[in-house]
């Protein structure tokens, strides 16, 4: 059944791409904190709590390919996305910083990285969570067919 084989192959590839993005984001985030010594702020930590386990959960779904990954991974991606969204609102000044919890210690709105004026750390985070979320959603639709 070559047709079925092909579908399952692309399903696997979608999951693999999710895993790849989660892994790159995890290593990137560790690079910022451990190598470049940027202290992660509170919101960054919450996003990390959602991001790091994705690497492990998604890799579990790859070998052998396990459908139930579309049940276990999306909550993490979704929670991470909401925190990243909130972080971006703070960062861009849509929500003033004084009503959020991390005024002491590390500021959540300090500009550490700003590539080309748009790729700030919170922006990279929401991009990663968005892509992973959308791909998992697509995968779920394909599997339920």
């Amino acid at each position: 059944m070559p047709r079925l084989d092909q579908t399952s192959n692309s399903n696997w590839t979608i999951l693999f791409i999710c895993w790849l993005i989660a892994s790159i984001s995890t290593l990137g985030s560790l690079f910022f904190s451990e190598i470049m010594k940027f202290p992660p702020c509170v919101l960054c930590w919450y996003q990390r709590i959602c991001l790091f386990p994705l690497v492990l959960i998604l890799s579990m779904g790859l070998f052998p390919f396990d459908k139930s990954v579309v049940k276990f991974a999306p909550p993490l991606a979704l929670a991470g996305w909401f925190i990243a969204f909130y972080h971006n609102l703070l960062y861009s000044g849509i929500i003033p910083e004084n009503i959020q919890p991390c005024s002491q210690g590390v500021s959540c709105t300090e500009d550490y990285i700003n590539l080309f004026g748009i790729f700030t750390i919170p922006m990279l985070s929401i991009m990663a969570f968005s892509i992973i979320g959308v791909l998992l959603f697509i995968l779920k639709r394909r599997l339920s067919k």
Partner: protein
Amino acid sequence: MKKQNIVLISAICMVIVFVLGSYFYKNQQLKKLGFMAKENASTFVREYSLTLGSDDAKVYIVEFFDPACETCRDFYPFVKNLMAANPGKMKLVVRYAPFHPGSDYFVKILEAARKQGKYWETLEVMFNSQPYWASHHDPQPQLIWQFLPQAGLNMEQIRNDMNDPEIAKHIEQDLADAKTLNVRKTPEFFVNGKPLPSFGYNQLRELVETEIQANY
């Protein structure tokens, strides 16, 4: 290609990029700091900065510290021994990074004591009593006063001098330089402009020894 191999190779590639990236970044930072030490030496040593040791010394050790920081307290005897072991070859530059909320108060006392020529005595009294006035990383300014007379200070004078706006300005400048040099934790050391490769007593000693060998 087998799926296992794809994942394995991607994982290996990512780790390699991470390691190479760290190596590259550290090298670049070292170069940048070395350049700053030459071109912008004032970021490391301001004119007002307190120094200890011979003016002919070729090994400058710049320490950013916070009087309320426990690790700074632990490093104090170590740095003192290091200076004693290399007489005339090292010069210590004291910079402030009062990151604990309220610890600039203690810096002000130190700087006021400096005007009475009792800086090191006061620093020792401060460090010795630190567990009392700064327990749980919460510096309590009023608790230090009972210990200060041990340093032989004129207390009335201290209370006057510590409010000198000049001192506040110097603290601000030190904090600005700390930011430029990416100092986020205390104590942070620079030996002839070079940061510690990783944090620790031995790393500091080795760096000092390397610099002494290179300069003498």
